C-alpha cells in the first residue's frame, strides 16, 4: 500500500464574479476529498465544465481572484511532513512548484517561446528554478533528460514551429519534468492530438512515471486514455467526485450511473449497434440542481436524489461512490 502524497479535505473553491452588477458564484470545486498516493497514476475524468481545471489550480495553490478558496485544505506529504499549500508564502509556493509538483496545462505547446531554440528555453527554465550548481551544466542536463526519455537530441537545436504537434507536446512534458518532480499534474495532455501522437504522449508519461517512480495526475474526459494510463480513477461531476476506484473496477463494474454512461457512450470496434451519449447537458455550476447534481439526467432518479446530496462513501473495497442507489447488482450498465 503506497503512502499518500497529496490530499484534499473538503476542498471548496468558487469563482466569485461580478458582471455589471449581477453577482455570479461558480461552484467549480464543491467539497472534494482526494487522496493521491506515491508511485501511481491517478486519473480525473469528467466532461468540460465539471471543474477539473479549477481543481488542478487549487492543487497547485494557484488560486487568484476571481477564484477563491472557500473551504478545506490541500495537504502535501513531504518527507514525513504535512504541508498545507495555502499556508506557504509566494516564494515557498514557487519553489514547491516545478521542483516538487509540476503542472502541465492544457494546450501547453504554446508555452514554448517561438523565437528561440528549444535548448535556450530549457536553459532559461533551469536558470530560474534550479540551484546554482545545476545552472552551470544547464545544456548538459537538458541533453541528458531528453536522451533519457527517448527523444531525439537534434530537437534541442530546433525552433518550436519546426517540430510536429506531437513532438511539441512531448517536449513540453519533458520540460515540465526536468527537475524530476515528485508529482506531475497534466491537464488534458492528449486532447486535440491525433491518435498516434496521443499514444506517444501516453507512452512518454508512463515512461517518466516508471523511471522516476513519482505520481502523475492526468485529467482528461477521454475514458479510453484513462483506461490506458491510470491506476486509479476519480470521476468528477459538477464540482464533486462521484466515483473513485482502481481502473479495473471502474471499467469492470461502474456503480455511478454517470460513470456507466461515460463508458458506454464510447464506440467500440466490431460493434455498430446504436449507442447513446449522456442525455441532456452538464449543469450550470452557477445554478446547481438541488440534491444530487446528476439527478436531472439520471435514469434511476428517485425522490431522495432531488433533496439530499449523496456523499462519497466506500461501497466496496476501495470503491467509493456518491449515489443514493444502495446495494450491488440491482442496476446494470446504462445501455
Amino acid at each position, binding site marked *: 500500500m503506497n503512502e499518500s502524497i497529496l490530499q484534499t479535505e473538503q476542498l471548496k473553491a468558487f469563482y466569485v464574479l461580478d*458582471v*455589471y*452588477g*449581477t453577482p*455570479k458564484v461558480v461552484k467549480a470545486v464543491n467539497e472534494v476529498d482526494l487522496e493521491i498516493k506515491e508511485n501511481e497514476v491517478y486519473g480525473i475524468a469528467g466532461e468540460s465544465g465539471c471543474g477539473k481545471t479549477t481543481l488542478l489550480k487549487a492543487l497547485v495553490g494557484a488560486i487568484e481572484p476571481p477564484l477563491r478558496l472557500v473551504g478545506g485544505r490541500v495537504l502535501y506529504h513531504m518527507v514525513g511532513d504535512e504541508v498545507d499549500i495555502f499556508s506557504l508564502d509566494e516564494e515557498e509556493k514557487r519553489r514547491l512548484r516545478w521542483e516538487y509538483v509540476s503542472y502541465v496545462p492544457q494546450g501547453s505547446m504554446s508555452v514554448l517561446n517561438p523565437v528561440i531554440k528549444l535548448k535556450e528555453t530549457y536553459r532559461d527554465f533551469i536558470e530560474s528554478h534550479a540551484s546554482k550548481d545545476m545552472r552551470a551544466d544547464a545544456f548538459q542536463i537538458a541533453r541528458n533528460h531528453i536522451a533519457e526519455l527517448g527523444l531525439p537530441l537534434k530537437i534541442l537545436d530546433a525552433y518550436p514551429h519546426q517540430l510536429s504537434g506531437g513532438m511539441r507536446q512531448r517536449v513540453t512534458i519533458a520540460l515540465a519534468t526536468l527537475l524530476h518532480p515528485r508529482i506531475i499534474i497534466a491537464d488534458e495532455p492528449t486532447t486535440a492530438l491525433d491518435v498516434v501522437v496521443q499514444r506517444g504522449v501516453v507512452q512518454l508519461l508512463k515512461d517518466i512515471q516508471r523511471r522516476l517512480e513519482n505520481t502523475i495526475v492526468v485529467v482528461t474526459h477521454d475514458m479510453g486514455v484513462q483506461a490506458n494510463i491510470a491506476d486509479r480513477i476519480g470521476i468528477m461531476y459538477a464540482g464533486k467526485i462521484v466515483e473513485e476506484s482502481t481502473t479495473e473496477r471502474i471499467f469492470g463494474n461502474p456503480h455511478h450511473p454517470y460513470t456507466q454512461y461515460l463508458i458506454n457512450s464510447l464506440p467500440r470496434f466490431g460493434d455498430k449497434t446504436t449507442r447513446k451519449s449522456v442525455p441532456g447537458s452538464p449543469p450550470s455550476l452557477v445554478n446547481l440542481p438541488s440534491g444530487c447534481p446528476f439527478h436531472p439526467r439520471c435514469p434511476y432518479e428517485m425522490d431522495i436524489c432531488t433533496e439530499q446530496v449523496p456523499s462519497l462513501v466506500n461501497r466496496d473495497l476501495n470503491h467509493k461512490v456518491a449515489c443514493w442507489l444502495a446495494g450491488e447488482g440491482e442496476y446494470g450498465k446504462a445501455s
Partner: protein
Amino acid sequence: MKVLRDLFRDYRFCFSFGVLVIILILALLSFFAPYDPTLWNVVPKDTKPSAEHILGTDSNGQDIFWQATFAVRNSLIISLIAAMVSRVVAILVGMIAGYKGGSTDRVLMFVSDSLLIIPLFLTMVMLAMLLRQHMNLVILGLMLSAFGWPWDARLIRSLILSLREREFTETAVLSGTGTVKLVLKEYLPFAMPLIFSTLINNMSWAIGLEMTLAILGLVNINIPTLGTMLNWALFYQSILLQRWWWILTPVVLALFLFIALYWLSVSISEYLDPRTRIQRVGTQ
C-alpha cells in the same frame, strides 16, 4: 435604458456625461445670446466678472460668457464634421481594402500611407493660407477630416483581415450572404468600439488642431471658436495684463472637453469591446 445604467457604473462615463451635458447646454445657449458675437464694442471693454457679465468682458468689447457659448458651439461643429466625415472615409477604405485584398488593397493603402507621411502641419498651414478667405466652419472641418482617416482606415483594415479568416465568415458565406451584407452585418459589430473611440479621439484631435491653427492666426478669426478666443486673448496680452478671466475661459473649457472626450471614448469602447460584451450576454 439598461445600456445607460451599465455605463453609469463607470465613474469616467459619469464625469464625461456630466461635462458634455454642460457643454452642450452652453452651445445651445448661444442661440439665445443677447449680443452678436461678430460685432465689436457691444459692451464696455475689459471689465472683471460681475453680475451683469458673468465671465467679464474682453478687449474687443464682447461679453466673454456669451462669446464662449458661440466658441463652444462652433468648435463642436467643426470637430463633429471633421470626425464624422473621416469616419465614413476610414470605414469605407478599411473595409474594402480588408475584404477585397489584392490590388485594391494595395492601391488604397498606398493612398492612405501617403497621407500619413505627408507632414501634417506644413500642409495644414499651406491649405489654411490658401483658403483663408473662404474659410468657414465646414471648410475647416473638411480640411481636418482629410487627414483624420488614414490611421483608422488601416486599423479597420487589419480587423477585417483577421475576421475574414474566422469560421463564421464561412458560415455566413454558406448561408448565401453577399459580400457587402457580410461585411456590414458580421464585421461591423466588431469594429464598433474601434469606430466609436476613434470618432471621439478624432474630435479631440480636431479641436486641438483647430486651436493650434487659430493661435497662429491661420483661421478666420472673426468666427468665435475656442481657438480664436485664445488667439484674441493672447493678442491682447491678457496674461501680462492679468486679465485672467479672458484667457482662462477657453483654456478651462478646452481642458474639460478634452478630458471628458477621452474618458467617454475609453469607457464606451470598453463597454462595446466584444470580449466584455460576450461576458454580459450570459447575464441578460
